């Protein structure tokens, strides 16, 4: 029997880590992810986990410690947010290029400045090209479920890449929700034991990790890395199927909400999908064929799934909870438009920047977006390249 509980997103992820009982956790506290290393430290102090906790002096060091321990053959995990993730930037690439399947809980928070501790996606979106998988949760249940799946996905023999399990800071990480936890023995059986093919502490084999790569080899190694990211799509789907068989909860690259006959859609990531779904329901009740696409997996990018989901849609709003400062929109907007270019005909695609630095995203905001999209479709006008949602001006 599944365990009914009421937990915050941080508690849920910490509980998942306790159930998995990894070999190493190396972490440095930063709001709003601080509770995760705090709870894990308490579990270890209480004798509920046998994990080695490495209290490091910075996030650059926490990621470095995870890289070292994962290369040594130890399943390693960490958690961070915002500037902490930014401080890991250099090491994120090392973890990915060395093909080390570290699992990191990212509790999304705005990057400074102006200094702000609240939620948006600027931190993980800033690290979107680091070679990590990125899987985003809408709520605490998904944060828990995703984290458990992320361990398997990263460690899959055809993938071997690190994974960020993202949830929205405070909105998901600190709000307490009812959720279903999986029995610990089932979690342990699901993730299995970490058995890397090659690891530094193997006394029977010689190994050097992270050697200098000359121009004659670097590009072939990057090609292998990008192929591993492509392989992750299959692994994500396979592992989601196994997870569904265990829990009944279904996961994929995307979640399509009332998209079957939708004429207008929003594409959104994370907790704001909740407000988005409510807006869709209200519009449906008013006779508007609205739908929502929640991007669960951002890396690898769900390009084929997006093309399939948007084929019959007249107008779409792509919602970015970060600005890339390209002066041409946000990263999700740019990538969705690139994915559908030449593959989806006659669609009106608008890009919105919303919810920065913890700005509330309300049902009426999403309804406003749907209204604007419908108006553009009706008048045949081209949308602005991108715009800020609900901005004072």
């Amino acid at each position, binding site marked *: 029997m599944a365990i009914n509980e009421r937990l915050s997103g941080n508690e849920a992820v910490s509980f998942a880590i306790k159930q998995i009982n990894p070999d190493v956790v190396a972490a440095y506290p930063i709001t709003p992810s601080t509770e995760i290393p705090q709870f894990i430290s308490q579990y270890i102090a209480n004798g509920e986990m046998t994990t080695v906790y490495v209290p490091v002096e910075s996030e650059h060091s926490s990621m470095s410690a995870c890289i070292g321990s994962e290369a040594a053959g130890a399943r390693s995990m960490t958690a961070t947010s915002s500037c902490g993730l930014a401080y890991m930037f250099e090491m994120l690439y090392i973890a990915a*290029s*060395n*093909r*080390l399947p570290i699992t990191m809980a990212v509790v999304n928070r705005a990057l400074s400045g102006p200094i702000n501790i609240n939620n948006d996606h600027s931190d993980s979106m800033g690290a979107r090209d680091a070679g990590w998988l990125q899987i985003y949760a809408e709520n605490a249940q998904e944060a828990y479920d995703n984290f458990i799946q992320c361990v398997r996905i990263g460690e899959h023999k055809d993938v*071997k890449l690190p994974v960020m399990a993202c949830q929205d800071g405070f909105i998901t990480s600190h709000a307490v929700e009812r959720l279903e936890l999986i029995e610990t023995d089932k979690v342990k059986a699901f993730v299995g034991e970490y058995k890397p*093919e*090659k690891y530094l502490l193997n006394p029977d*084999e*010689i*190994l*050097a*990790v*992270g*050697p200098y*790569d000359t121009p*004659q*080899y670097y590009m*072939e*190694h990057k*090609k*292998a890395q990008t*192929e*591993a990211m492509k392989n992750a799509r299959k692994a994500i789907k396979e592992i989601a199927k196994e997870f569904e068989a265990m829990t009944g909860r279904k996961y994929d690259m995307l979640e399509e909400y009332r998209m079957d006959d939708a004429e207008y859609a929003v594409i959104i990531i994370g907790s704001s999908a909740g407000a988005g779904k409510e807006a869709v329901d209200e519009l449906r009740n008013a006779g508007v064929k609205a739908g929502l696409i929640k991007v669960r997996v951002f890396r690898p990018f769900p390009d084929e799934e997006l093309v399939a989901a948007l084929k019959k849609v007249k107008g779409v709003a792509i919602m970015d909870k970060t600005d890339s400062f390209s002066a041409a929109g946000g990263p999700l907007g740019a990538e969705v438009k690139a994915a559908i270019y030449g593959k989806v005909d006659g669609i009106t695609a608008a890009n919105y920047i919303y919810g920065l630095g913890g700005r509330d995203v309300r049902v009426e905001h999403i309804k406003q977006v749907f209204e604007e999209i419908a108006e553009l479709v009706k008048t045949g006008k081209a949308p602005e390249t991108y715009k800020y949602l609900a901005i004072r001006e």
Partner: protein
Amino acid sequence: MKDNLMKNINPETKWQDLTPGGYIYASGNSAEFKTGDWRTVTPKFIEEKCKQCLLCVPVCPDCAIPVVDGKRLDFDLDHCKGCGICAKVCPFDAIEFVKEGE
């Protein structure tokens, strides 16, 4: 991925046959990395002037002066980068540098 691919990996190797992350499944193999083609000037060992004092051997940053039975031999041009330190320390002018190809 096979073990000990080290010897088979070369600039013609396809990406599928490289080790993940460029891992090296061997040790003590720096000699297999030939650095001689970095050289723009080449050392010339003038054996008749050499007194076998061996001052040149420890200053070579690339261990490119082989010593057998207490005597130095001609240069290991697979690894000599042509830095010229050996010629500087030689008291007997037994090492000259000529431009590559001359």
